[in-house]
């Protein structure tokens, strides 16, 4: 059964320090699908991305996660990345003095090496990188600048998408890639994502706002609240949420959290 899924998350519980954030999360994603994850602040949306990518300090208590049938939880951060998991950061960090080009080539070569391939030639890579820059509307001189060094918020987000274009991951997690973007930058990000939709690659789009989903059409929308997915639906759910907010969650939770959990994940 699980073979048909690209990503399969079952009963995932995880904590940060002493606090349990994910409290039994289930999520199954088939190749080519786009899943949007929405929900109130503090629900665990960013945590999900960090736990899946293996960030230190995010401890899995129980549950199973497979990517392409492989047990993701036993892999190191970089092994998960090389296995095809990509996380576009909400707040990309700066690495002064390390040029974008050098960083990207090292990343691409690490991926190639994991697949038993030779490093890409500098000439070919430069060509690809220039092409990727163009696609996300960043001038080619960004390749020479330090990673995210002095980039504006929008440039950082576009830089993340450029990395995604070059690394060609199987599963992309976009952690609020729309936050702080004006409408033009938002379109650039969306275009980048859409250009990579090929029926195989899957996306988890974490967002607060329905707005991004106007440009990246999700196959499913999930509501993440208090560490679990409490409601799933199609793209129309996002519009509903935009309308209603999340106040209804509190009422439901008061009724019977356990039943609610089952209802959603049947």
């Amino acid at each position: 059964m699980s073979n048909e899924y690209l990503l399969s998350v079952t009963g995932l519980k995880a904590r940060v320090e002493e606090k349990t954030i994910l409290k039994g999360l289930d999520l199954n994603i088939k190749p080519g699908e786009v899943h949007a994850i929405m929900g109130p602040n503090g629900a665990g949306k960013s945590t999900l991305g960090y736990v899946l990518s293996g960030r230190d300090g995010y401890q899995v208590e129980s549950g199973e996660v497979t990517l392409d049938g492989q047990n993701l939880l036993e892999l190191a951060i970089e092994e998960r990345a090389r296995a095809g998991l990509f996380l576009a950061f909400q707040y990309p960090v700066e690495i002064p003095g390390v040029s974008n080009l050098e960083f990207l080539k090292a990343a691409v070569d690490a991926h190639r090496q994991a697949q038993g391939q030779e490093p890409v030639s500098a000439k070919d890579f430069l060509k690809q990188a220039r092409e990727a820059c163009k696609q996300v509307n960043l001038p080619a001189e960004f390749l020479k600048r330090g990673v995210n060094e002095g980039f504006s918020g929008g440039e950082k987000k576009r830089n993340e998408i450029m990395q995604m274009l070059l690394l060609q991951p199987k599963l992309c997690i976009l952690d609020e890639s729309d936050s702080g973007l004006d409408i033009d930058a938002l379109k650039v990000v969306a275009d980048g994502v859409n250009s990579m939709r090929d029926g195989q690659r899957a996306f988890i789009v974490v967002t607060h706002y329905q707005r991004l989903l106007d440009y990246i059409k999700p196959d499913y929308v999930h509501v993440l609240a208090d560490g679990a997915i409490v409601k799933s639906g199609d793209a129309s759910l996002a519009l509903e949420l935009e309308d209603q907010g999340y106040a209804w969650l509190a009422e439901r939770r008061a009724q019977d959290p356990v039943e609610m959990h089952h209802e959603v994940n049947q």
Partner: protein
Amino acid sequence: MTEEINKALERKYEAGFVSAIESETFAPGLNEEVIARISAVKGEPSWMLEWRLKAFAAWQQMETPEWAHLHFPTIDYQAISYYSAPKSMADKPQSLDEVDPELLATYEKLGIPLLEQQMLAGVAVDAVFDSVSVVTTFRDKLEEAGVIFCSISEAVHRFPELVKQYLGSVVPQKDNYFAALNCAVFTDGSFVYIPKGTRCPMELSTYFRINEQNTGQFERTLIIADEGSYVSYLEGCTAPQRDENQLHAAVVELVALDNAEIKYSTVQNWYPGDENGKGGIYNFVTKRGICHNNAKISWTQVETGSAITWKYPSCILKGDNSVGEFYSVALTRGAQQADTGTKMIHLGKNSRSTIISKGISAGRSNNAYRGLVRMNPGAEGARNFTQCDSLLIGDQCGAHTFPYVESRNPSAIVEHEATTSKVSDEQLFLCQQRGLDAEKAVSMIVNGFCKEVFKELPMEFAVEAGKLLEISLEGSVG
């Protein structure tokens, strides 16, 4: 994450091997007789011996400086041997073919092939092994251009006037405790003279290797760039891995006459001792240059080795419009201690200096920048810019900055910028999430931090320095 980084920092010292070479080594101990023996073994003229003895007398009246941010046990100067030379050097080899193959193999292993046909084109090497210069390559080619590049011992014989005129002219005998000791017991080192208006046709390089146990290395380098000349000089150092501490007290003097330029680059990789601070080289070095009118001296150093580093390559900007530069990367890990920086003494009008210092501390190490910028009353319109950046890796190391600024001329401008940062978990996570392992990530972040300094190094050295940092940061990540 800190644990991971520290694991990544546990590394091997690749130059730690010992060469099985028969040596003639003096018994430990220091007195006038020993100095007379050193002088005799080198067949020195009497003026040289007198000079040594004068320095020795001064040294005996001096005390070990204690102002540096360093902790080490008292050094027993009587327990050190002051001269060691490979036996095969006793009858001086006249050409490379006559040099002990074991010696050549040692340098080969260190990546410094001395056979000219194998060498990087355009770099001449003086190889100093313990107390003697083993070989100097490309001499003929240099002599064609009028450039003198030989061991200092040879210069004492062949060019006594130049040596007499300039030896001790930049670093006086009594300058400091370790300099005085060096003056008394120095054994070998390099001598360079670039004639007027000559651009040295190749990079000059000296490679220092300590091999013998319980032996100090006291080398002496003197570089004279005559009016309007240019030279780029590279210096590299390694030593075997031993449990005992070894003393290295060198003196380097640079003289840049009017309109001359000297670029002096160092990659220092002496054995740093083990994780607990056992063994390693005590590196107490005095390096100083003097710039006459419109002259320029540029010091670039990459310091990754030594248990203790005490070193302040400095410039006396005597001439008008003279320029001094200091670019430094100092990496400490394990239990290493470094107290390093520079002095820029502005005397001339419109003299300018730039200081870029990058300190990287990891493990339980301590890394201090100590720098002095002095604007003397005559330094009309002089300028200095200083930038000191510290990078901390892990949470058990220390970074310290001690900038001294003395301005006695109101028209002089002194700028100082300093930052301290950490290799953050976020940076590492970003790199790893893009597929890089922690080791590669740390090395990349550190290299990025050092970029402003690396770009000052000659091409081959920049590559070597980058690799050296990578090796220094090597060790598998669990």
